[in-house]
């Protein structure tokens, strides 16, 4: 985290997996992830490829009449 905090947006954009558009927000996002993990006692996480958009679709499909 100290390393990330010392970097400029341009430097963060060079990190693997960091898009240019989100590089500016990376540190704030990392502080939230770290804070939540610490406070909830979570040691490791898995990244989920599905999120809100998929949830909206799944909920809609649940309400379609079955075949």
């Amino acid at each position, binding site marked *: 985290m100290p390393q990330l905090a010392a970097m400029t947006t341009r430097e963060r954009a060079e990190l693997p997996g960091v898009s240019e558009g989100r590089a*500016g*927000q990376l540190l704030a996002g990392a*502080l939230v992830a770290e804070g939540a993990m610490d*406070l*909830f006692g979570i040691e490791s996480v*898995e*990244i989920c490829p599905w999120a809100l958009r998929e*949830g*909206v679709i799944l909920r*809609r499909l649940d309400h379609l009449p079955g075949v």
Partner: protein
Amino acid sequence: MRLGVLDVGSNTVHLLVVDAHPGARPLPAHSHKADLRLAQLLDPAGAIGPDGVDRLVATVRDAVEAAEDKGVEEVLPFATSAVREATNADDVLARVREETGVDLKVLSGEEEAKLTFLAARRWFGWSAGKLFLLDIGGGSLEVAYGMDEEPDCAVSLPLGAGRLTAAWLPTDPPDPSDVKALRRHVRAQIAARWGSSPASAPPTTSWPRRRRSSSSPASREPHARPTVSTYSAN
């Protein structure tokens, strides 16, 4: 059928087109993203300025056209934190409706957390046991956890990465004292939400102990599986 979701978020306006059928997993067919940064277009009073509304209207119009081009039967349009918290949300929604015909549904923070939890549950399945979900968006942080598809707790806090960056980290690189202040703010917000209502607090101390390595035979038991869905993962 081909469905479209139009997600008016705090960072992007994202049209996702999927081929979806009851009982089948949705297959992405097309994805179109516009970087609108609505959360950063708020004026000091917390309203989306005229320029921001114009751009939103144009982007929604483009997305609807793109959806039609792709043969989408139905579009599910919704908005999250940026529009939800804008002081002129009603005006913004009315203009989008008048000029594009799109009736954006504003999701509450709780709905947002619940729907994201549903997606994580379907992705990881029942064998994952207890799921703990964190979703760090541009405008808000969603936290949800539970054994089922409907989470026991679903909460949204105004701790999105874009919102916090705009409000707390004005310089590049950030000033160390600003970083420290933001760190304190984030932790205080989370602690205040869960510290004050013990009834809905997650069993924090038991998360690490209940997690088991996947090689152990006990891993078949329901265990807490922390899941993070980040704003950059999608």
